[in-house]
């Protein structure tokens, strides 16, 4: 038996699908340059993907065909050598279509495995989000703007090749930088991309994460019912309609808060979230009407509070809001909880405005696809610049 390697890529559905596929394919091709056998696949249960919903791709490589077969006897690997996270907000956890509950981002890492995250944050910030793990591991940050694109386009900002260079650094037994560069040239005939891979290889470094370091939160777990405990006829109870909200200050009741799915919280489905300026809201109802996830609670005074249990972070509310900076999408890494913004505003309006101003500074350098004309042209050179920074 030879050695078996497993690498997973955790990504945002649709927006990073092509990116993830390019990475897992290239891993197999680069390992094959050195005589190894491999398979690249996306988790079937994540498909059809939804915008921004966490998803996974895998590359399984063995020294020989039989070793690979041993590794593929289980469709999804139980443990991986490297976890690649192409959006740092995923450090909060992975709540996918494919399973129930919240999976810590580092869950599958072998002891002393490496978590590679593309981010502009420092390790301390990411470790605040990532759950604690019982075994030590290494955290490496590939500095850069998180790479998002749309369903039909690919933003060629070198994130893929830089990650391949980083893998060669941390797992040289899998493949060398030389093999990575060969595969890059074979696939894309671009020496600049090969150079980006080399720079990432040279510069990437990691910090050791000890057991107990990380978020102390217990991830939400879901126990499956046995067949005879389930109702039959493929019928499930509807989520009740919901009811009035209560004002935390006046105790007045009113408005409407829909009840929500208790087993799917969507806390990790966002890469950005809306913050609302309740002082400038004109109660036009557009955000409430247009939100595809019915995430807005109607407050007793007729304001609209984005409920983080239901928000997928799509940004439609920001796009339809007619008031300047009334709804602003903010990088999800700027938040530590999912509390109600309206309740905070009711309790302390001045404090809320200060909080709001602070948060709005963290406007996303990321976005879902292309939010304005020229974004691609603006972001790609910026990313290439980042890749070249000393």
């Amino acid at each position, binding site marked *: 038996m030879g050695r078996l390697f497993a690498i997973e890529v955790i990504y945002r559905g649709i927006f990073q699908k092509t990116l993830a596929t390019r990475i897992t394919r290239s891993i197999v091709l680069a390992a094959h340059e050195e005589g190894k056998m491999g398979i690249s696949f996306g988790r079937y*249960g994540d498909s059809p993907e939804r915008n921004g919903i966490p998803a996974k791709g895998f590359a399984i490589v063995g020294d020989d065909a039989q070793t690979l077969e041993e590794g593929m006897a289980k469709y999804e690997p139980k443990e991986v050598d490297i976890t690649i996270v192409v959006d740092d907000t995923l450090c909060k956890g992975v709540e996918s279509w494919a399973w129930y509950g919240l999976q810590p981002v580092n869950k599958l890492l072998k002891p002393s495995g490496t978590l590679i995250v593309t981010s502009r944050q420092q390790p301390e910030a990411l470790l605040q989000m990532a759950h604690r793990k019982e075994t030590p591991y290494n955290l490496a940050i590939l500095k850069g703007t998180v790479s998002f694109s749309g369903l039909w386009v690919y933003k060629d900002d070198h994130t893929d090749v830089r990650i391949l260079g980083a893998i060669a650094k941390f797992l040289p037994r899998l493949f060398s930088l030389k093999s990575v560069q060969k595969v890059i040239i074979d696939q894309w005939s671009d020496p600049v991309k090969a150079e980006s891979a080399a720079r990432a290889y040279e510069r990437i470094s990691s910090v050791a994460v000890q057991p107990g370091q990380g978020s102390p939160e217990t991830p939400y777990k879901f126990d499956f019912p046995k*067949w005879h405990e389930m*109702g*039959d006829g*493929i019928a499930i109870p509807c989520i009740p309609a919901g009811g009035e909200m209560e004002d935390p200050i006046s105790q007045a009741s009113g408005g409407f808060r829909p009840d929500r799915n208790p087993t799917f919280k969507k806390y990790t489905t966002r890469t950005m979230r809306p913050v609302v300026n309740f002082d400038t809201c004109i109660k036009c109802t557009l955000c409430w009407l247009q939100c595809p996830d019915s995430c807005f609670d109607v407050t007793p005074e007729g304001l609209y509070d984005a409920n983080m249990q239901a928000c997928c972070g799509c940004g439609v509310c920001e796009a339809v809001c007619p008031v300047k900076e009334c709804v602003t999408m903010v990088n999800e890494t700027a938040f530590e909880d999912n509390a109600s913004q309206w309740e905070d505003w009711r309790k302390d309006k001045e404090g809320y405005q200060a909080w709001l101003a602070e948060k709005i500074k963290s406007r996303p350098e990321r976005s879902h696809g292309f939010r304005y004309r020229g974004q691609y042209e603006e972001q790609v050179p910026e990313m290439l610049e980042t890749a070249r920074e000393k």
Partner: protein
Amino acid sequence: MATLVEAPHSTDKTALITGSEAIAVACKLADVDVITAYPIRPYDTVMQYICKLVANGEMDCEYIVAEGEHSQFEIVKHACACGARVFCGSSGVGWMYAMEALTVTPALRIPMVAMVGNRALDDPGAFGVEHNDALAVRDLGWQLVWVDSAQEALDTALIAYRVSEDRRIFLPCAISCDGAFLTHSQALVEIPSQEKVNEFLPPYNRADLLLHPDNPITVAPQGNEDWVMEIRRQNYAAMERVSEVLKEAYADFERIFGRSYGNPFFEEYQTDDADIVLMGMGTLSTPVKVAIRQMRKEGKKVGFVRMRWFRPFAAAELAKSLGRFKAVGVIDRDYSFGSPYMSGVVTTEVRTALYSAPGPKPPVLGFIAGLGGREVTVPDVQKVADAVYKAAEGKSQPLTQWIGLRE
């Protein structure tokens, strides 16, 4: 001018009606709420008879003519989820056109009762009987029953509603009636009183699965591999329960209507002293029984086992019964190309039932006959019996033979 004196409603009466009409009468007696129709021969006779009952004011129901069989079965599926007792049916390729709806109906535990006027699948476009249409759903959770007389069609329809709508079951049931021989031949049928039917058949109660604003549920959400096996296992359990519920229903039927079918799953004819038996489903019982009477005059002790319920398949009971004979010949009015020994569907299932049975295992020969509505004649049956006798004597015989073929 002759005066028609109508018998009081509450008494049984005798009528000269076809198998299709008998099913229509059962629908009336069962007070079916929603009926969908789309014409295809020979099933269309049922829709015509029901239509007439509605037009004459004898029956009150929603009668919807769909634009095709797929919609036809989807409409009643939904109506049944909303608590309506439903009926529909089809034949041959019409049944196949409804296949997606037929697939989801047992999965959603919809106790739909349907009549299949058995018809050869196209091509060629033939109207005659073949059983491959109804058999196409044999693995999906449908209860499948074959009848051989108009009386049995009426009685079985009432039993089908009772069993399907039992909360322990909630599975659809298809009643197969051979095209022409049953759907288009009139026979004397005893029509029971409404009172007796009411005593036998309680109203349909969708209970916790009722799709209604007062019982907000989502039916048929998308589910992944975390749920599918458990859902299939639930249907397995429901199908497993059918035998017991069927036995209860047949016992109650006998008590209330005074007509006994004995063993609900299969009928035995002159098997007590038989050396060999023939098997089959549907109306071929008539030539087979006549042939057996003739052969017995010649001293050949031949019996007959007519399968009624094909799903659920009463494997243990059947194997126990067949173990008494020296050889078995199964006449299939269907084909299963490429199956083990190229036999028909029923033959293959009978062999499977015997394989794991604890008792003796007689040799089983398969015969394909009567396809596309060709008659199975008395001489055909005698030919079958001759071959089965040879097998009983230990003489080598082909495991599958075509009977009544020009060759």
